[in-house]
């Protein structure tokens, strides 16, 4: 049995790496993508181009403006006296936001009225908008309290916030996105490659040749999955090395636990891919089906879009998403450095899913071949 599996492994590896271009796709592309995409994924908002419309043009209005322009969030592109050019600038995307101070701003402040300052944002970038609005609120509150002090003398603030971000004190996006992208790349490459594995032999007709050899079905399945498990591990290791060398991300927790859990994740993906592969008739079908799995797996994993804001039904469905659990495990081990005791739930879920996919694939395969 060992010998037959060994021969099968040799064949599979030869097939996979014979083509130089294939070696590139399997080994190099995920690494390049990881590097480029990791740098692109940032939700750090800074240097937002704003236009300022200062209709008042007084000491007070300029003092408010300087509070905005001093911050790292805003980059004042232009200061206008009226808003006639504003629609055009926003339409063209020359600025993403505008701050408009009304005529009579300083008069209002002196006479004890509330003076409306408009913050206009390009709502297309809704994430930036939320942060800009947050920040504009803070800048204005600070302005108000200084203004109040000038008039009424010092009044103590009620609360002083001591904000602290655990696990990632400077809130750098890369610590979140780089491990996340590793999980994405693993499912992407693993599922696409493996889903082609069996259907390819079916399509070119070599599966009949394999079936007339003394190889057993279980050996065939092992022979088909093992090479992808090994390549998956190698790709993953290379990606962690890049994460460390390029992005300075160290694994805080146990490396052994991480590798064990990653093995479960990769195996689960392989099971899913085999399931696709045995049910598909052509490589094109296999690929489209794999894609139909990959897309929701990535989007509904909590990687980009928070799970707890999804509708209840969808939240419940994410239980069946292996990437959801792996992402949680990966972030917890890599960033939080927690041990197995805090990860019992995701680990069980992940293992159950992997076992389920794999046994379904084997059952389905038995039937297809007979």
């Amino acid at each position, binding site marked *: 049995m060992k010998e037959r599996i060994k021969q099968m492994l040799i064949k599979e590896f030869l097939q996979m790496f014979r083509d130089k*271009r294939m070696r590139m796709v399997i080994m190099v592309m995920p690494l390049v993508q990881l590097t480029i995409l990791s740098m692109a994924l940032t*939700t750090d908002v800074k240097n937002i181009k704003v236009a300022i419309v200062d209709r008042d043009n007084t000491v007070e209005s300029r003092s408010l403006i300087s509070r905005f322009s001093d911050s790292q969030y805003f980059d004042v592109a232009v200061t206008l006296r009226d808003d006639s050019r504003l629609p055009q600038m926003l339409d063209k995307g020359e600025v993403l936001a505008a701050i408009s101070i009304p005529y009579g701003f300083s008069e209002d402040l002196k006479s004890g009225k*509330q003076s409306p300052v408009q913050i206009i944002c390009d709502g297309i970038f809704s994430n930036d908008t939320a942060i800009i609005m947050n920040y504009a609120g803070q800048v204005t509150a600070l302005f108000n309290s200084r203004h109040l002090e000038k008039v009424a003398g010092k009044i*103590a603030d009620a*609360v002083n*916030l001591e904000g602290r971000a655990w696990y990632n004190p400077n809130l750098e996006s890369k610590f979140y996105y780089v491990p996340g992208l590793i999980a994405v790349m693993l499912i992407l*490459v693993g599922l696409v490659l493996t889903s082609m594995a069996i259907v390819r032999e079916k399509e070119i007709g070599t599966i009949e040749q394999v079936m007339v050899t003394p190889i057993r079905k279980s050996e065939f399945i092992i022979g088909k999955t093992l090479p992808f498990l090994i390549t998956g591990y190698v790709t993953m290791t290379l990606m962690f090395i890049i994460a460390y060398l390029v992005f300075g991300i160290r694994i805080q927790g146990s490396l052994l636990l991480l590798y064990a859990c990653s093995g479960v994740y990769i195996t689960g993906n392989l099971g899913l891919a085999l399931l696709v592969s045995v049910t598909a008739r052509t490589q*094109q079908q296999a690929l489209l089906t794999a894609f139909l799995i990959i897309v929701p797996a990535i989007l509904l994993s909590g990687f980009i879009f928070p799970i707890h804001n999804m509708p209840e039904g969808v939240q419940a469905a994410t239980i069946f998403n292996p990437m959801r659990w792996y992402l949680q495990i990966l972030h917890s081990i890599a960033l939080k450095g927690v041990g197995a005791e*805090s990860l019992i739930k995701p680990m069980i879920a992940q293992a159950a899913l992997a076992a389920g996919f794999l046994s379904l694939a084997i059952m389905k395969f038995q039937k297809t071949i007979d």
Partner: protein
Amino acid sequence: MKGFKFQRMRAVARKEFIHLIRDWRSLALAIAIPVFLIAIFGWALTMDLSDVPTVVWDQSSTPQSRDYLSHFQGSPYFSVKYGVDNYRDIQKYLDTGQVIVALVIPWDFGDRILAGKTADVQVIVDGANTNNASLALGYVTNLSLIYNSNIRTKRMAGKRLGATPGQAVIEPRAWYNADLRSRNVIIPGIIALVMVVIAAMLTSVTVAREWETGTMEQLISTPLRVPELILGKIMPYFVVGLTDVAIAVAMGRWIFHVPMRGNPGLLVLASSIFLLGALFFGLLLSIALKSQVLANQIAILSGYMPTLLLSGFVFGIHNMPLPIQGITYIVPARYFIAMLRGIYLKGVGLEILWLNGLLLTIYAAAMMILAHKKLRLMLD
């Protein structure tokens, strides 16, 4: 295009159509994937953060601290889930990811507020998810500022200063998307994603399949010429792609009520050009690589992820580091998404979008010419 015969192209198109229709599962998937994608994006996904799961350690437990906390309980942004009385439990909730924010109110909070002093409040956020963490920190800060200003008004009254001085109040406005529904932004963008994926995936196998199954030799022996073959191959998938666009637009219009402020004709035109570019790109891969697995793999890796992440679809290009911003210029979806949003949400036309349109056209033309050049109808 010497000797180009429309009839021969039609024959290839017909053959490809039959391929497509026979393989009903692929065809069904080519329609189902877009519907499915739009449905999950439309219903399930939002980057907006609300109901942030929060844990509170109220050491003070006074009317003052409860007053402060009521700002959080009443806010849609927070969902105060647990109360604890030690840091160990806070650590546990954060470690397991059950909460994102922990608030610690100190013992002397009530006394200090009553005495007119400032009290320190500790906020701990789970920095592992940076986006959620910075949004959540912003929300905490804003609620605290509101509390500050309430207390300040009371303290002012204590000083008997007479009239309170005026203050600046923010009037937030979001143009193009007044209610800040992420759906309005995402649905137009999804058209690009769907098309990249479907188009490049479908065509990336077509020529490679002929090579792999050996039917290419039969094609070579016919009088068929290169332009007839590539145009004929593209035709059926162009129809499928436009059907997908129609489905996306219809779902956006009638199910998700995304406003359409611009010219629908321009939308169709831009979509067609982008679609052609994506189809020829897939075909080019298929011609150049002669292997279905390889062409597919590259079509997905170079199509899906860059379109999702480098086109401005989810992450604003203006926030990326400069070298990466440079790379986004070679992602065609970048221009298409800018056009889609311009047409859908801003209601602008070619007077502003002409450059994006021009670059898309150049891209499509380049892909067509490359595919044409690469395809040799002869045996190696």
